[in-house]
Structure formats: C-alpha cells, structure tokens
C-alpha cells in the first residue's frame, strides 16, 4: 500500500512487523492454553507472565496489577461498571469530562440508566479540563473520577497529575482512559495517583482486539466478564496469547524508541500545523498548541464540510479523519469540538491528521498541497463561502481574523 499516505494513526495503527513476528509462534506452535497443566501451556503462560511484567514496568506498576483485555473499550467499560458496582455502598456518583471517548460516555449513560449519577466537567477552548469545576463537583458519595489522559480528536493532554492529586485529596478513585497516551507518553501511575488506567494495543502498533486495564492493588474491583479463572479470576475468557505477545512487543518497541519517535512526530506535526495555519485562510487549530499529543493535528476549515474533504483526500491517497472514527457516518458533529466551543457548522468542517514516526516530510508536503487544493475547490462550491465573500465585498468586514 505504498501509494497511500496514512494519517489516521489515532484511529488505528499499522501493526509493527516485529509484533506480528512475535505473535506467529503462538498461533501454531505454542498454542496451548496458558491455564493448562502441561508444558505446551506453560510456554504460553510464561510468555504471558513476562509480558505482564514488562507492561507493568512501563507504568511503574506491579505485574499483578495488569489485566489483559480485548481492547480499550472493554477496559473502559470494565473500569466504570465494575467500580460502580463494587463501590455502590459508598455512593453512586461519578465524575468525568465532557470530551471523553464514547467508550466512557456511553458507559456513563448506561450507568445513569441504572441509577448512578454522572457529572460531566467542562473543558476550556483548548480542551483542558476545568480543575476548579472538577474539585467543586466532588461530593461525599463520589466514587470515581474518570478523565482521559489525552484526547483522541484534538490531542489535548490533560493535567493528569493535578487531577490525580485532587482525587487523592478527596479520597476518590481515579481512572484514566490512556488509550491515546499509553506508549506515546511517559506515564507513572504512582506519581500521578492513577488508580486505574485503560490502554489499547492497536493504538501503538500492536494488534487490534488487545488491551489492558491497570488496577492498583487495594482497589475493590469486580469482574466485568464473568466465567473462568483467567487473569487471576478477574477477566474470564481464554487468554488471547498471540494478541498479548503482540501487544507486549509493540509496547517494548514504543518505549525503547519513545523519545526519538516523539521528536520525529512533533517535527511532522509542527510542520503541518505551521503550513496549514499559514497557507489556508479561515482555518482554526483545535486543541491546545503546546499540551498536545505529538502525533495530532486538528483543524477546522470554515465554509466546508468534513466528509467531502475526507473523500477528496482519499482520492489522492491520503487517509485522514474528521471527528472520531467511531462516529463517522453519523451526522452529528463531534461532541469534543462542540465542547471546546465550536459552532456546529465549523465543527462540521474539521480535519484530523494523526501522524506516526513512519511518515515522511515529503508526505507532509503532499498532504498540505492536497488539503489546500481541496479546501479551495470545496469553498468555491460552497454557498456559505459565497455569502461570506459577498458580505466582505459589501464592506461588512466580518470574520476576517478567523484563526
């Protein structure tokens, strides 16, 4: 697929060939059930135990605190539902942010139907959680604060350490959806006071359908998937051994090259942000300019609509997205862009480009040229742009300093 320029790494990543390589023996050679008693299962069990140890060390956690799951959504659902059930005796109130992934928000809605109460804390225009509102929302019956580490759409990194400190101060559990951050940023669960953390393998060049939930020792946690005694009785289902091994190998690569990969991505990101911001009029950078994932670029282009932009990019071999991948196909604009204050019609015209260290500068140049050309073409087709230009000509001078 060399002709493609893949800029949707926040949606999913290419599985690292090294990860695939590491998985292969566990499909057809060491395929034994890790819970079994015989040596064939023991090789699988040992490999899973080593991966657990390795993953734990990346967070400064103990290996007994890592539970492998089937992905980020399952980790999020587990953290919220099981905490709600285990701590219902203390209270039925939870706090989260308005810009969480749907894996959190829809689970909150589900819990609301079950009699729980959820407070959704606002973010500022850059997507940063309002800490004072968070603290004000904490009540005696608050059992959990769940705030994402970094946002999947606009890349904003939350003040996790401060949130953790607040949670600790008020003796409330703290979960973070680190699906976009894990293996991209350094995370220390102790220093940051994180009690639970969700991660997903395919967001850092591991296989799809894998993830884990970190649960600090001492947190009362129930099972979410009930059944066999896998994962120390906490998560039923025959272990996805190849998947766990692939996730582990991908994490290993990501952590040992974290600095150089981040630097490379930031270079690509900053180049895109700079050129698009300068060369395309009436655009707006979404998300915080500094506290931002190294791979995330998100712009709104006034007067045009996102889907037609994406299709046009696709025709030029550029893979990008608009809002989160999960909701593409839906007609509502992204709740994240609305939460940072964008009006609907501006939110509709947004573009997310998420790079990986494997992208090249030459690809960035081609991308900028393509975006410029397409935005211009779509604007020339847009009745909104027509009205705007005419009002400009009519001397009303509105909206000039759009960015």
């Amino acid at each position, binding site marked *: 697929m060399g002709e493609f320029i893949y800029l949707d790494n926040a949606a999913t990543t290419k599985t690292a060939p090294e990860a695939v390589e590491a998985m292969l023996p566990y499909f057809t050679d060491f395929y034994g059930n890790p819970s079994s008693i015989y040596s064939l299962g023991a090789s699988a069990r040992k490999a899973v135990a080593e991966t657990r140890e390795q993953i734990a060390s990346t967070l400064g956690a103990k290996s007994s605190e890592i539970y492998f799951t089937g992905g980020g959504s399952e980790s999020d659902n587990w953290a919220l539902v099981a905490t709600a059930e285990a701590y219902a005796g203390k209270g039925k109130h939870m706090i989260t942010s308005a810009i969480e992934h749907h894996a959190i928000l829809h689970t909150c809605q589900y819990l609301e139907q079950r009699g729980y109460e959820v407070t959704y804390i606002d973010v500022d225009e850059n997507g940063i959680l309002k800490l004072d509102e968070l603290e004000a929302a904490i009540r005696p019956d608050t059992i959990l604060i769940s705030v994402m580490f970094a946002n999947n759409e606009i890349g904003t990194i939350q003040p996790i350490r401060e949130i953790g400190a607040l949670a600790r101060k008020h003796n409330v559990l703290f979960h973070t959806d680190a699906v976009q951050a894990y293996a991209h940023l350094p995370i220390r669960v102790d220093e940051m006071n994180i009690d639970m953390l969700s991660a997903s393998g395919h967001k850092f060049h591991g296989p799809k359908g894998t993830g884990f939930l970190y649960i600090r020792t001492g947190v009362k946690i129930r099972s979410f998937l009930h059944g066999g005694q896998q994962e120390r009785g906490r998560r039923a289902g025959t272990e996805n051994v190849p998947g766990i091994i692939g996730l582990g190998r991908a994490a290993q690569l990501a952590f040992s090259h974290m600095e150089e990969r981040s630097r490379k991505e930031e270079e690509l990101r900053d180049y895109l942000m700079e050129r698009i911001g300068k060369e395309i009029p009436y655009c707006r950078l979404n998300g915080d300019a500094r506290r931002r994932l190294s791979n995330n670029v998100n712009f709104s282009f006034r007067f045009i609509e996102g889907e037609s932009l994406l299709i046009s990019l696709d*025709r030029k071999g550029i893979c990008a997205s608009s809002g989160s991948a999960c909701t593409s196909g839906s007609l509502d604009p992204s709740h994240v862009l609305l939460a940072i204050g964008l*009006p*609907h*019609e501006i939110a509709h015209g947004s573009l997310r480009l998420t790079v990986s260290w494997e992208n090249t500068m030459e690809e960035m140049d081609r991308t900028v040229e393509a975006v410029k050309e397409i935005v211009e073409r779509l604007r020339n087709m*847009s009745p909104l742009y027509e009205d705007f230009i005419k009002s400009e000509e009519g001397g009303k001078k509105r*909206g000039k300093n759009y960015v």
Partner: protein
Amino acid sequence: MYSDKVMDHFENPRNVGEIENASGIGTVGNAKCGDIMRIYLDIDDDGIIRDCKFKTFGCGAAVATSSMATELVKGKSIEEAMKVTNKAVMEALDGLPPVKVHCSLLAEEAIHAALWDYAQKKGIHIEGLVQPKSDIHEEESGEEY
C-alpha cells in the same frame, strides 16, 4: 460506500456556480446539520429551464445529488422539473447509502425553493408547489472565530 456515479458527480460536479440575475434562487438546508444547497435557475419566457447552477456545503452525497439534480432539470419545462423527485435523483445516481437519503430530499427541496422564488417574482402559481421552509444560512455564532 458510494456508487461510481455518486463519486463521479462528487469529483466532477456538473453546473457548479452562480447565475447572475437568475430567474429564481433557492437555498435550503441548515449549516448546523452540515448540509446547505443553493440552486440558481435561468428560466426563459416559455417556462423552459435554460440553465441551472448550484452551490453546496455538505457531504459527498450532498454535492453529488445537487449536481445530478441540476442535470435532471436543465432543459426541462417547469412542469417537468416539478416531477424530478428525490427518488429520480437517487436512481440516476445508482442509489445512495441509507444515511444519505436525506441529501436527495434536500436536492428536491432546493429545486422547489428556486421555483418558488421564480413564481413569487413572476407572480405566478406553479401547480403542486408549496412554500419552502425559510432558508437557513451560516449561523451568526460563526463570527466569533
């Protein structure tokens, strides 16, 4: 997701543009929902649509249905144009995904709105035509940015 016909009309839209001193202009849709279509009609004294142009803010299907709708009404009489339904537009495009059917409805409405504008200006009555819902332009809140 889209048929080849849709993609063709999206990539090479027919009749994009404006008509100066158009006989009728209709704008429908809502920026909030992500779709706005504007149709310009040039209608001669015999009631024949000589020219038809469009501008659209919206998804691929919105652009393609606008383009196809203009093609279908061009050269037609007003009565014939009234018969260009959203179904006709969809069929001409080899279908649309279910979530995109509303785009073809919007295209039908845009034609009707332009015809209504023409009828108002001319002070005539067009059989079967009802007043379109009021046009909704970019919201004022947009100016904040």
